[in-house]
């Protein structure tokens, strides 16, 4: 049930500081959209406004509109808990719950939403671990702690955990930056499989990665340190990497700065 996201005039604050300014864009369902840009340009902050994680940070505040199909995430009466439940997230560093087994990690989100029979849970665990290309590696030690896995395996476990609640959208905040090249490749493969089921938004520092996995790419930039980050342009990945309309994008892509 992948959904489309429409953002209009979104501004995010840390206390009095304006982190990103007046961003409007849309994200296509069942495709991968990549956010690129130099450090501090607000791409991670913007990502966190898409599932209302930004307001968890002390002083975090958001203005503007984010439509998921036809519901405004920031509309009156909307429960941030439901939003996060519907829009899953994978973080920069793999963060499986250290006190839970691999099995319990996968079903952690599910268990919040009600009672399930053992068979149902078993099903979900297997399906999502297979979906995360992890099943064959861990099927014999499902009851072992998740923290015993390698970094790449842990990150795939986190992806399985996020997909297990069947979200509409999957947000990924530099999911490979803490991983070695081989694990990175495994995650990238996984992303291209997952896009058939989810709307995926990925923040990355790595332009090759953006070129490899995404259909559309958004370039963010900031005028100077301390200034708010802005969306410079968003288009198909081919277009951004071969023939961008903005000079700043071209400079960044060609490695002239950042």
């Amino acid at each position: 049930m992948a959904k489309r996201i429409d953002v209009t005039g979104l501004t995010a604050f840390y206390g009095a500081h304006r982190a990103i300014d007046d961003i409007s864009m849309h994200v296509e369902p069942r495709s991968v959209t990549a956010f690129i840009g130099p450090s501090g340009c607000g791409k991670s902050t913007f990502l966190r406004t898409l599932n209302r994680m930004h307001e968890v940070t002390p002083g975090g505040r958001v203005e503007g509109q984010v439509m998921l199909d036809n519901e405004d995430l920031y509309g009156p009466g909307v429960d941030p808990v439901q939003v996060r439940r519907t829009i899953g997230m994978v973080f920069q560093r793999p963060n499986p719950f250290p006190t839970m087994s691999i099995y319990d990690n996968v079903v952690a989100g599910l268990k919040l939403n009600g009672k399930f029979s053992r068979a149902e849970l078993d099903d979900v665990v297997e399906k999502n671990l297979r979906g995360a290309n992890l099943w064959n590696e861990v099927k014999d030690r499902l009851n072992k702690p998740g923290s015993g896995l390698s970094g790449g395996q842990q990150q795939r476990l986190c992806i399985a955990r996020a997909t297990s609640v069947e979200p509409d959208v999957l947000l990924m905040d530099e999911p490979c930056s803490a991983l070695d090249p081989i694990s990175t490749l495994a995650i990238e493969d996984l992303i291209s499989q997952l896009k058939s089921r989810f709307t995926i938004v990925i923040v990355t520092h790595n332009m090759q990665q953006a070129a490899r996995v995404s259909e559309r790419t958004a370039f963010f930039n900031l005028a100077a340190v301390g200034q708010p980050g802005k969306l410079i342009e968003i288009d198909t990945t081919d277009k951004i990497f071969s023939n961008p309309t903005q000079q700043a994008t071209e400079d960044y892509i060609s490695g002239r700065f950042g």
Partner: protein
Amino acid sequence: MSDTVKDLNGRTPATAATGKDGAAADGGSPGGEGRNGKRSGSTRVLRPATLKQPRLPRWAPAALVAGSLGVGVLTGVLGGLESRLQWGLIAALVFVAATFAVTTIVEGRRQATDRLAASLVWTSFVVAILPLASLLWETIARGIPGVSWYFLTHSMNGVLSWQEGGGIYHALLGTVQQVLLASVIAIPIGLLTAVYLVEYGRGRLAKTITFFVDVMTGIPSIVAGLFVLSMWIMMLGFGYSGFAGALALSILMMPIVVRSTEEMLKLVPGELREASLALGVPKWRTILKVVLPTAIGGITTGVMLALARIAGETAPIILLVFGSNMINSNPFEGAQSSLPLFVYEQWAFGTESAYDRAWAAALVLIAFIMILNLVARGIARWKAPKTGR
């Protein structure tokens, strides 16, 4: 967890086999719910129909607090319950129960559990703050009338328990002398032990010392008193004196000094030591001239907190200093008094004027200790940037 293991082990081979084709089929199906039909009780659709969630209005918690307070007071008055404790307990119970009930109806179960937890946390906060606030309030309100210059500068010599007047000069003098003597003993030993643990200590001896320092922190003050009693007074035959009390206080003080100094020394960056050693400065001079001065702010704070802690000790003083109504300025000979002991003695007399003196002395004691604490924390804050904390 063991049943999980069994369950999984028993099940794994079978599903692993069926799973293979399942995974292939899964790849394309959007929700991946294709396989659910095979199992009875298939996975329910989890996705909420809407992101909206009926919520209680913002003023609801305040209204619930007010309402439950009202119920508490009302039952208290109508039921003729004497103690305010009962009123408060009724109000707290009504608040927690009502919040849970109302939220369950309006927002649903999960939100209700969340609110229940929040209201319990708030309630426990209030439950804890009340007695502590009352303690401070009572001490201040009942103590202030008794505190005067006369009270601070006279002893209890010749004042009978039911009479008014008298003062705490002898007790103040005793407390100051005993605490100073105790720190003269405890600070060098404590500092050196901390230096040993951080700069030299390795292996089994250091581990043993660390463990026993921790355990020593938990020695009841009365046990420290009994130890000095059995050794100093009963075995070695010395009499009651301020010094005997100071010995017991120093035992209580040492582990606190070690602990805080250790923490501070560990914060001194290793590069500082290396820089000094690389200049050819011997290790002991490095410690004395570089390491200790860098950490001095934090160490002072720790020592003052330890002082504040032992200044309020009563139990060993009862056993070792014995108590006296007269001014005895020699801590090495004869019974003395101390502030906490004075409070205890006056309480034990049980007359109104003695109670007044007890509260007044308690106020002086609390003020003494709070000033030590505030100054100590002030030093900690003032020195903080230099130690890189």
